[in-house]
C-alpha cells in the first residue's frame, strides 16, 4: 500500500525541487535490505573511525615516549662529552673561541653517525653556531628562556626548520647551558628530527585506514548477505500471502531447515491450508444451499401447477358456491399468484447467488422498456390513483438485457405506486455519452436517509406497522439491485420522510462499460431546483426559463425544504451523487401529452 501510494506520488511529478529527496526516502522505506545495509555501513564506519583514531593515538604516544627517552639519554651523553671536551680544551687566549665551538658542534654532529640523528646548535651571546642543516629558529623561544636560567637538560617539542628548502618536520629540541672555562656560558641545543617516527606513524595510519575501509566494505557485504538471507524468505512469504489473497489457494511456501524462517513458512502453509479448507467448506455449503433452494423451487413447481389449475377450476365455478366457499376460492386464487411470484423471485435470487445469472444484451431504447412497463402497470396505477408522468425527451439506446431492465423498472414503478399514496409519479430518462439513467420519483411516505441502503435488503420492510397493499414478495428491490450489478450499473435510492423517494437506475451505454457518473443526480431534481431557488432567495434564475422548471419546483412543499441540508445531504447510498446544481432541467417537460402517453 505504501509502495503504491508513494509510487503514485512521485510518479505524479510533484516538481523536481521536491522530488530529489523523495526518491531515496521512498527507497529507504521500501527496502528492508537497504535499511539493514545502510545501518551496518554507518555503524561500522563510526566504530572503525573511532577505533582507528584510538589506535593511532596510542601508537603515536608510545612512539613519542620512547623517542623522548632516547633523546634524553643521547642528549645527556653528548652534553657530558661536550662539557668534558670544553673543560680539557684550552681556549684561553684563543682569539676565536667560536671556531672552536663550531668544530665542537660539527664533531658532535658527525659523531651522531652522519645519519642526521641530531643536529647541534650552540648559541653564545648573539652568536649562533650550527652543525647540520637545521636553522637556529628551530629552537623554540620558551626553551631558550628556560635554558638561560637553568643548568638542567631541558626538552621541548619543536618544528625542525632547515636552512635549505627541505620541508619542516616535527622534532624534539633538547638544550642546556654549557660553561666554557674562562669565556663564559653557552647554550647548546640538540635538535632531533622525528622524520622516522613520522614515517612509521604515516605507514601505520595508511594501514589502519586501508584495513578500516576493507573492513567496512566486507561488513557491508556481510550485512547484505545476512539481509538477503532473511529477506528472501520474507519476500517469499509475502508473495505466498499475496497469491493466497488473490485466490490461488493451492500455493504453498517451500520449507527449508528448521529455523525461524522455516517455521514462518510452515505457519504460512498451515494458515493457507486451513483457509483453503474453510473456504472450500463454505463454498460447498453455499453450493449445497443454493442447489437446495433451486431444487426446492423446482420441486414445488409441479404440485403448484396442479394446485393452481385446481384453484382455477374452483375459481371459475365460484358462482355456484355459497359465499364462504366462493370467497375462499377467490383468496386461494390471488394468494397462489403471490406464492408463485415469491417462488419465482426466490429462484431468481438463488440464481444470482449461484453466479448463474448471465446477461443477454441487445441494443434497446430504454424508453420503449419504460412504455412496456407502464402498459403492464397501468391498471395498478389506475387503482391507486397515481398519475405517471414520463419525461424522456431524447433517445436512450443502450446495450442492456431488456428482460432484466424491464424487471428492474417494473419493480421500481410498482414500488412507487405502492408507496406513492396516489400522488403523481415521475419517470425521468436521461442519457449522456456513457450512461443512461432512469429515475422513478414518487411523492409518498419516503423513508429515512439511513434506510437508503436497507431498502435493497432481502425481505426488508420499511415500516412493519404498515400494511402491504400490493403484496410484493420483498425480494423485488434485491433482485433489481442484482440485475443492475450484472449490468455493472448502479441502483441507488434516495428518500426523506414525507418527501417521497427516488430510485435511480444507471446503466452504461455499452455492455461492460464502466460508469463514472450518472446523467441524473441522486437527489430528485425538483428538490435540487427548489433548494437552489431557496438559497438564492428568488425563483430559479435564467438557468432555464421553461415553465416546466417552475412547476417542478413548486410541486414540493417549500416548508419542508426549509430544513436546508436535506436535499443537499446525499444519502449514504453507494455512488456519490453527481453534482446537482449545474444540471440543466431541459428534459423535464411534463406536458399533458407526455402524461397522457404514460397513462395508456
Amino acid at each position, binding site marked *: 500500500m505504501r509502495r503504491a501510494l508513494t509510487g503514485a506520488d512521485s510518479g505524479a511529478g510533484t516538481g523536481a525541487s521536491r522530488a530529489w529527496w523523495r526518491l531515496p526516502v521512498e527507497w529507504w522505506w521500501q527496502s528492508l535490505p537497504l535499511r539493514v545495509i545502510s545501518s551496518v555501513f554507518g555503524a561500522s564506519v563510526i566504530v572503525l573511525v573511532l577505533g582507528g583514531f584510538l589506535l593511532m593515538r596510542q601508537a603515536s604516544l608510545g612512539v613519542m615516549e620512547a623517542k623522548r627517552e632516547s633523546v634524553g639519554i643521547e642528549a645527556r651523553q653528548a652534553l657530558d662529552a661536550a662539557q668534558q671536551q670544553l673543560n680539557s680544551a684550552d681556549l684561553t687566549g684563543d682569539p676565536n673561541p667560536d671556531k672552536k665551538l663550531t668544530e665542537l658542534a660539527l664533531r658532535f654532529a658527525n659523531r651522531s653517525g652522519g645519519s642526521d640523528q641530531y643536529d647541534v646548535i650552540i648559541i653564545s651571546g648573539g652568536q649562533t653556531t650550527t652543525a647540520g642543516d637545521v636553522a637556529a629558529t628551530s629552537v623554540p623561544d620558551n626553551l631558550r628562556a628556560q635554558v638561560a636560567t637553568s643548568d638542567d637538560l631541558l626538552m621541548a617539542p619543536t618544528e625542525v626548520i632547515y636552512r635549505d628548502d627541505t620541508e619542516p618536520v616535527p622534532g624534539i629540541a633538547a638544550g642546556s647551558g654549557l660553561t666554557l672555562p674562562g669565556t663564559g656560558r653557552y647554550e647548546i641545543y640538540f635538535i632531533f628530527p622525528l622524520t622516522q617516527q613520522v614515517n612509521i606513524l604515516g605507514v601505520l595510519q595508511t594501514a589502519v585506514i586501508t584495513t578500516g575501509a576493507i573492513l567496512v566494505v566486507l561488513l557491508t557485504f556481510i550485512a547484505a548477505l545476512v539481509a538477503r538471507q532473511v529477506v528472501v524468505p520474507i519476500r517469499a512469504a509475502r508473495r505466498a500471502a499475496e497469491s493466497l489473497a488473490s485466490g490461488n489457494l493451492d500455493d504453498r511456501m517451500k520449507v527449508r531447515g528448521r529455523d525461524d524462517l522455516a517455521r514462518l513458512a510452515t505457519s504460512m502453509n498451515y494458515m493457507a491450508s486451513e483457509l483453503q479448507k474453510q473456504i472450500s467448506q463454505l463454498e460447498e455449503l453455499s453450493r449445497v444451499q443454493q442447489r437446495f433452494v433451486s431444487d426446492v423451487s423446482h420441486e414445488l*413447481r*409441479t404440485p*403448484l*401447477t396442479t394446485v*393452481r*389449475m385446481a384453484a382455477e377450476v374452483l375459481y371459475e365455478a365460484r358462482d355456484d358456491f355459497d359465499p364462504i366457499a366462493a370467497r375462499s376460492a377467490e383468496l386461494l386464487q390471488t394468494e397462489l399468484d403471490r406464492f408463485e411470484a415469491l417462488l419465482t423471485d426466490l429462484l431468481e435470487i438463488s440464481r444470482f447467488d449461484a453466479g448463474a445469472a448471465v446477461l443477454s444484451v441487445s441494443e434497446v431504447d430504454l424508453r420503449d422498456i419504460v412504455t412496456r412497463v407502464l402498459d403492464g402497470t397501468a391498471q395498478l396505477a389506475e387503482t391507486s390513483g397515481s398519475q405517471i408522468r414520463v419525461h424522456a425527451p431524447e433517445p436512450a439506446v443502450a446495450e442492456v438485457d431488456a428482460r432484466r431492465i424491464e424487471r428492474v423498472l417494473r419493480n421500481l414503478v410498482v414500488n412507487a405506486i405502492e408507496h406513492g399514496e396516489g400522488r403523481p409519479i415521475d419517470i425521468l430518462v436521461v442519457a449522456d455519452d456513457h450512461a443512461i439513467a432512469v429515475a422513478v420519483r414518487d411523492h409518498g411516505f419516503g423513508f429515512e436517509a439511513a434506510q437508503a441502503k436497507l431498502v435493497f435488503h432481502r425481505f426488508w420492510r420499511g415500516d412493519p406497522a404498515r400494511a402491504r397493499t400490493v403484496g410484493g414478495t420483498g425480494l423485488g428491490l434485491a433482485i433489481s439491485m442484482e440485475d443492475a450489478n450484472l449490468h455493472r450499473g448502479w441502483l441507488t435510492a434516495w428518500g426523506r420522510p414525507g418527501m417521497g423517494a427516488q430510485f435511480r437506475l444507471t446503466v452504461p451505454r455499452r455492455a461492460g462499460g464502466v460508469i463514472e457518473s450518472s446523467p441524473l443526480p441522486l437527489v430528485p431534481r425538483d428538490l435540487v431546483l427548489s433548494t437552489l431557488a431557496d438559497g438564492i432567495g428568488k425563483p430559479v434564475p435564467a438557468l432555464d426559463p421553461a415553465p416546466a422548471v417552475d412547476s417542478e419546483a413548486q410541486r414540493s412543499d417549500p416548508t419542508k425544504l426549509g430544513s436546508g441540508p436535506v436535499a443537499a445531504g446525499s444519502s449514504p447510498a453507494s455512488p456519490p451523487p453527481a453534482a446537482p446544481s449545474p444540471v440543466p432541467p431541459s428534459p423535464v417537460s411534463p406536458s399533458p401529452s407526455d402524461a397522457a402517453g404514460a397513462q395508456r
Partner: protein
Amino acid sequence: MVDDDAALAEMLSLVLRNEGFEPIWCAHGDKAVEAYHDARPDLVLLDLMLPGKDGVAICRELRAESLVPIVMLTAKSDTIDVVAGLEAGADDYVAKPFKAKELIARIKTRLRRSPEEVDQETLRIGDLVINVDGHTVKRNGAAIQLTPLEFDLLLALARKPWQVFSREVLLEQVWGYRHAADTRLVNVHVQRLRSKIERDPEHPEIVVTVRGIGYKAGEQT
C-alpha cells in the same frame, strides 16, 4: 401427455377434457414413443424430467418420424434443457407453474389450421414455392417436410417479404404470445427452419437475419 406426476396428469386431464380434448396419459419416458404410436395424437405435451428416457430424447425420436406439434412442460425454464428441447424439435414450451388458460392457449395455437386467407393459392420465397392450402413447400418440385410451426414461421415471413419481423412480432404471429416471451423460441426455430430450407444454412438466403432487429424473407430469385 407425458408426465410422471399423477396428480398433475389427472388435473390436466380434467382441464383438457373440459376444453373438449381427449388426453391420453403416459407416465414413463420409455413408453412415450410406443404410446404415441398407439394413439397418434394431434399434439404431444411432454414433461422434460421423466423417469426412464428423458424428454429431450423422446422429443428427438418423435420429431425424427413425425411432424406432430410438441409442447414441453418444464420446471426449469432458464436452463439449457429448454434450448435442448427446442433444438430437439419441440415447438413451444410452458413453464411450470402455468395457468390452465395459458396452456390451453398454447395448445390451441399449435393446433390452429390457418383458417384465414384461403384465397391465396401459392407464395414464392426465394426459390421455394409455398402452397398455403396444401401446407406444402416445394423446391424445384421436390417437397420439403416442415412441421406446422415451421410452416407458419415461413409463411409469416413469405406473406410480407418487404417487412422485417422482430422476434417479438414473430412470437406474437406464430406462437400467439401477446406479451414478450422467450426469444430463444424464435432463434432455435429459425435455425431449424434454415437447416431444412436453405441450400447453405451457414449463409441463409431465404430467412435472412437483420442485425439488431430480427428476420426477413430473402430477395426473390
